[in-house]
């Protein structure tokens, strides 16, 4: 299991290579990458700053990872979440799940993403053509998380 909260960028191909390195028992690898978009609603995004709570961030990612390992027969997983100033096209978050079976890999990656949205202590601030603002939490994201409970 690899959990990382970091300012630096990550390389998706390299992370996949790491998780499958030397293994011949994996049947399925699912990944999800979240990126900074140049448009959000009506706004043109120039920059996105991710603030985080250092003492809790890694701990909460680990908690989400452990829960997903309990719920699905996963072989391994990676969660990397960036913080700091980011720009359109930049990576924000990477989830990789590996399993013998595709269903488990897919479901677990989706589950982790749904929980990250509402339970990982990160906050997004957008700098747009109309000024800057904190991104509001979406009620819909809470609903998505709650389908799993």
């Amino acid at each position, binding site marked *: 299991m690899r959990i990382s909260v970091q300012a630096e960028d990550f390389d998706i191909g390299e992370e996949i290579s790491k998780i499958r390195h030397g293994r011949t028992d994996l049947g399925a690898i699912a990944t999800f990458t*979240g990126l900074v978009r140049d448009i959000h609603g009506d706004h043109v995004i120039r920059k996105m700053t991710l*603030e985080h*709570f250092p*003492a*809790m961030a890694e*701990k909460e990612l680990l908690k989400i990872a452990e829960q997903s390992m309990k719920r699905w027969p996963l072989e391994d997983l990676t969660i990397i*979440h960036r913080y700091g100033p980011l720009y359109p096209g930049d990576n*924000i*978050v990477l989830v990789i799940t590996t399993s013998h079976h595709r269903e488990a890999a897919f479901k677990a990656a989706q589950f982790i*993403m749904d929980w*990250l*949205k*509402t*339970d*990982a*202590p*990160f*906050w*997004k*601030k957008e700098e747009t053509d109309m000024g800057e603002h*904190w*991104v*509001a*939490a979406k009620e819909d994201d809470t609903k998505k998380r709650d389908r799993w409970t």
Partner: protein
Amino acid sequence: MNIFYFARIRENIGISSEEINLPSGVKTVSDLIRFLEDKGDNYSAAFAESDLIRVAVNNDYVGLDYKITDKDEIAIFPPMTGG
């Protein structure tokens, strides 16, 4: 007691952390927020909508009725927008 603020709440209040002496009447997280609100307009603006407040005590998320002591470390922040 140490209190840490994050994101919009940190900006509203204007500081990222402070140390306070817990007044004797303050037993729960919501007591603490009511106490902080009286410290000034910056605080009352930060805590205006109770729906938009989340709290952690000693690095665990807790509800507003969670009981606190002077030794606890508190973090107050808006709903998370990770992922």
